[in-house]
């Protein structure tokens, strides 16, 4: 009797699962009426779902909002733009399928790729397809600064991690330490190789790093270890939620120094609750709080078209600036847009900064991979503040902008210029 019941219950649950699995929507695109001509399609391969989806959440909303705003403002040279979103699911196999399906769509003239886990698995394939990858964010140096057809407009993750050392120096810290994620490379990204030489070059002392798991119930032991070493800057290369707990535990143990984290893990909304926390770090996308009109456009677009999306995220701002660069590159004569023409337009760019939306002027040369972007925005954030404060660069601004859009740069030795 029990078995039959179990079986019925099981079949019911199973049927329900199948139905529910089939429901749900795909990522889709936005077109606007009133514009003429075939839409110009930009394919976005992004991990909408998957374990690290939260770090690129704002990017999806930013892409959609950008498309709506652009079409409202008259499209691209009068033609509507269409964003085609394919979910890479944060998984190599699904990423290959997603990218392939975008490449095989002849209407797609450019790709945006935002998946830290899977970008390696698709890079070679894309390079062989003569389709430009125009953004956004970008993680691995060998992909974004080492593969043809990739146009890097923001610092890669290695630069961002190294820049945490400059951030520590900017915060007047003496002793640099780090907590690195044990389960996934995207949190860690080569920290072990990078910190020791950069701290030496910047004149800070380095007290090593620990690996931590998201599953730990307490980080007190790690925080005690940092205390023992007198660390006053702790670089956290972890996910947002783990960062929150580590910072809470360390502050609870009396830590009074500064924290730092990678760009994609900087979430002031979550961090504002940790009273007593101060963070100095790096953004790879423009600061969303700046008063400049080009940034205001970003915020108002999100507010109007994608109000559920959190604008306070560099995944959003890097997506926005990548798409804005696309618009600038192809210009107003959009009658014949193809993958080749887009590539040519990008190679024609000279020292473009989008008035401060890009961290440093970009120039691309045909036949060569993108040069590494070594400039970034540095911020100082105390829990409870409405917005972070931008740290002014100690030398020249990397992108020539002033105020909240000015960037600091690594010089060749790895210290702040």
């Amino acid at each position, binding site marked *: 009797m029990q078995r039959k019941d179990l079986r019925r219950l099981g079949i019911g649950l199973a049927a329900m699962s199948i139905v529910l699995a089939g429901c749900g929507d795909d990522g889709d695109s936005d077109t606007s009426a009133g514009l003429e001509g075939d839409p110009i399609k930009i394919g976005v391969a992004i991990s909408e779902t998957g374990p690290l989806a939260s770090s690129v959440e704002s990017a999806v909303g930013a892409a959609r909002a950008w498309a709506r705003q652009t079409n409202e403002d008259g499209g691209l040279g009068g033609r509507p733009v269409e964003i085609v979103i394919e979910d890479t699911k944060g998984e190599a196999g699904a990423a290959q399928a997603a990218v392939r399906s975008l490449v095989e769509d002849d209407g797609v003239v450019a790709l945006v790729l935002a998946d830290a886990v899977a970008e390696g698995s698709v890079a070679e394939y894309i390079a062989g397809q003569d389709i430009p990858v125009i953004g956004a964010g970008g993680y691995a140096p060998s992909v974004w600064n080492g593969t043809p057809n990739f146009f890097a407009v923001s610092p890669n993750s290695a630069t961002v991690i190294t820049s945490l050392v400059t951030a520590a120096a900017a915060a007047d810290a003496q002793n640099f*330490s780090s907590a690195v994620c044990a389960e996934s490379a995207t949190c860690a990204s080569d920290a072990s190789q990078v910190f020791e030489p950069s701290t030496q070059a910047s004149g800070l002392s380095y007290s090593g790093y620990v690996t931590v798991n998201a599953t730990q119930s307490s980080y007190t032991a790690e925080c005690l270890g940092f205390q023992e070493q007198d660390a006053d800057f702790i670089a956290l290369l972890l996910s947002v939620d783990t960062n929150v707990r580590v910072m809470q535990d360390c502050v609870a143990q009396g830590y009074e120094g500064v924290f730092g984290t990678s760009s994609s893990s900087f979430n002031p909304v979550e961090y504002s609750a940790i009273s007593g926390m101060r963070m100095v770090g790096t953004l790879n996308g423009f600061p969303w709080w700046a008063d400049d009109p080009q940034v205001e456009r970003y915020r108002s677009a999100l507010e109007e078209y994608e109000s559920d999306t959190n604008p306070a995220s560099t995944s959003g701002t890097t997506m926005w600036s990548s798409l804005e660069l696309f618009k600038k590159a192809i210009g107003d004569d959009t009658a014949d847009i193809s993958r080749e023409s887009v590539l040519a337009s990008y190679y024609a760019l000279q020292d473009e900064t989008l008035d401060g939306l890009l961290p440093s002027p970009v120039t691309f040369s045909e036949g060569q991979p993108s040069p590494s972007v070594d400039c970034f925005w540095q911020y100082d954030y105390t829990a409870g503040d409405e917005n972070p404060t931008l740290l002014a660069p100690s030398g020249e601004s990397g992108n020539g902008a002033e105020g909240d859009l000015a960037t600091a740069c690594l010089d060749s030795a790895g210290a702040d210029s």
Partner: protein
Amino acid sequence: MWNALLPFVVAGLTTGAILGIAGTGLVLTYKTSGIFNIGHGAVAAAAAFVFHLLYVEQEMTWWLAFLLSVGVLGPLFGLVLAVISRALAEQRAALKIVATVGMVLVVQGLATAYYGYNPLLVPQYLPSGTEVVRLGGVNITYAQVTVVAISLVAVGALYVFFRVSRTGLAMRAVVNDPELVGLHGTDPVRVQRLAWVIGATFAALSGVLIAPFTGIESVALTFLVVQAFGAAAVGAFSSIPLTYVGALVIGVLSSVVTKYALDNQALRGLSSSLPFIFLLGALLLLPKRKLDAPARAERPPRSPWQGPDRLRYGVGVVVVGLLALVPTFAGSNLSFFTIGVTQAILLLSLGLLVRTAGLVSLCHATFAAIGAAAFAQLIERFDLPWLVALLLGALVVVPVAALLALPAIRLSGLFLALATLGFGLAVEQLFYSRDWFFSQTGLGKPMPRPAGFEDDTVWYYAVLAAFVVTAVAMMVLHRSRIGRILQGLSESPLAVRTLGLNVNLTRLIVFCIAGYFAGVAGIMYGATVNFAVLGDSRYTAYYSLVLLATLALMPFREPWYAVVAIVAAVIPAYIDAEDTASWLNVLFGVFAVLVACQGGGQPMPTVVRTWIERRFGRARADAPERATTAEPWTVSPASTGIEVRELTVRYGGQTAVDAVSFAAPTGQITGLIGPNGAGKTTTFNAVSGLLTPASGTIRLHGDDVTRLSAAARGRRGVGRTFQLMQLADSLTVAQNVALGVESSMAGSRVRGQLLATSAERRTTAEATEHALELCGIADLRERQAGSLSTGQRRLVELARCLSGRFDVLLLDEPSSGLDPVETEQFGETLLQVVRERGCGILLVEHDMELVLRICADIYVLDFGKLLFHGTPQEVRTSPIVQAAYLGSFEDAGVDIEQDVIEEDLVP
């Protein structure tokens, strides 16, 4: 130094306390139900999610939310688990594990479908929870102190309950013998239900208490509780206070190691892998008797239907043909198919371990990862040709897999699974992030494809070719000797051991082979996604659980069950909703639980079987050799038989056999009789080598064999049958009987275990046929052993003993289950065997008529001592024997006449 360590110790105690609560609930349910709930953490996670729903989303007061999620939901879960556990109680270990894994998948799937992958943050809700007190140099919150206090109270109360109350005592008894508990007036079902309720409530308590510290994320919570397995291991899976202490020790040690890890990169990952190292260590070091599962009969696996060869090849061609057509319709989804095929290779190798050999392994994804990492290193450092790097890279896995055979030697079922799980988790924590493994970089290690295979379609065919090669290899293995002895090992392990097979070597071999193919699969997968990255889901320890659940769902024989891996990998391509993966997990989990509860996949329905047999003919075994009239084995004159002197066997303080001496010479049948509990089977087990005596000697043909293993004695000529029959039910009668001679041919030699020479095959066939004829069951040779009547099965066991070169046969109650006619025929068979072959038989029997008729010599045991020795006539008339069997007349208070007694004893 102590001052510096103290803060870490205090910090570690608080984490240990939480682990202690989780571990306690786990040990409780294991002790009382015999089911180790790998899904214990899933219960914790579910309760935590409900708490979040009530406290954070519905904004209830904290204690009401607490009460509902722990006090109401916990017991509810417990009742559901109790029902599942009743269905699982008699299933074999693999299925129990699959069911608990299914629970993990269901909760994880539901959680990610509703809440996504991000942990839910829960604010600290305990009163004054966030206020801080300084203790031993570290700031502790009142919440942490409260948690420790709760844990001490709860665990202490449970310990007292177990010791003092009647129900507690009943709980400890019920796992071993529920019927016995029932006889004493306690309802075993009610007792087990209560145990599950308490256990699940503990799980819920640990989940809700820990939620503010860790956030709520179901895989994470599940693995937190997996850390509690390490604590349970310290408590030898039975002592609740030791489990709690073990949890504290693990917490403190992990914390202290963290202190040194900051300075010393070599220690990276050690802190988080400690619980798994404890688990593995405890399983390897605990005395074996602590790890013996309670001796309840397990339902044997359902025999898969054996189709005719023509059908198998036909289906094979169709399947491969369909797979070859995939690139024509897959389009941009090709990568899903390619990955699916690599996972099919992985599943084939896991099936070899789990299905064929019956060894449950939960670290298969780790083997794949090791293969991939080795391949990446070989390509990078030595620039070897691709195929060489593939073959060598997979070879690196072999010694690692061999290492795992070590626990396999002393553990079985659940404990082997736990040891492999602990191993997989420890390797993941300690090594995956190292530079020489996957490294910590976002890209990971490049996994190139061979030159000319970069195109995805061409690569798909390469992977398909690898799958076909693996499938063929598996089929060849199954048909060769190793396949036969693995099946024997899986379904009748005691039998093959006593027949002379060195089962440790067998386990080693099968782990090595399975590890090799898993390495190949890992390399092919890595090359499909171009990089082997830290964090790739297919290399994680969690994925090993998913693999096992996937394997359990398929009822088909090798290699078709592997096709499910392709289906599973491809579904997300075509059902492209946001939560497909999550709902798939739920689906898998539900089916896993259902399938496990009903004893495995459903066999092919009879209607289909009949149709197939009509079209394609029945499965045909090899034509039998002409039975030789001459005996294949003759007993040499030097074989004198068994002589036992002053044998004493003790069990935990009780003396089961006390200084018993007897002889069972060749050429006759010797009887060993006595009332129930006299120690007959114990004596048998000691003589055949399955038990170590406390003192005494056992001589075989004049040689002292007391120190030799059961297999060694088997090879020297001691054969035996079992009271609880040990037959491979899914093999045919002929195959079972052949195991008798093949086991000793395989013996301790690697070549012998893998392959049979043509001479050996001839000998096997002849000996098998002769044994079948001798026992009169030659017409049953192609029937599956599981489909026979008890009487026929007894004869098969006897024939198995006779096929090999055994000169002394130990027969343990061979007539039980036989009707009088069958018993008489059996007796005749035994007499004929002794006449023809000249071997000796030692017979333990309850059927007095049989014993008195065929035995030349009889020994009578009672209460472990030798009571009487004499001829059948002497036994028949001995008042001592009568008293032993019937009790003394004065006690019985019945006046029994002498001739009535004689009537009972004389035919």
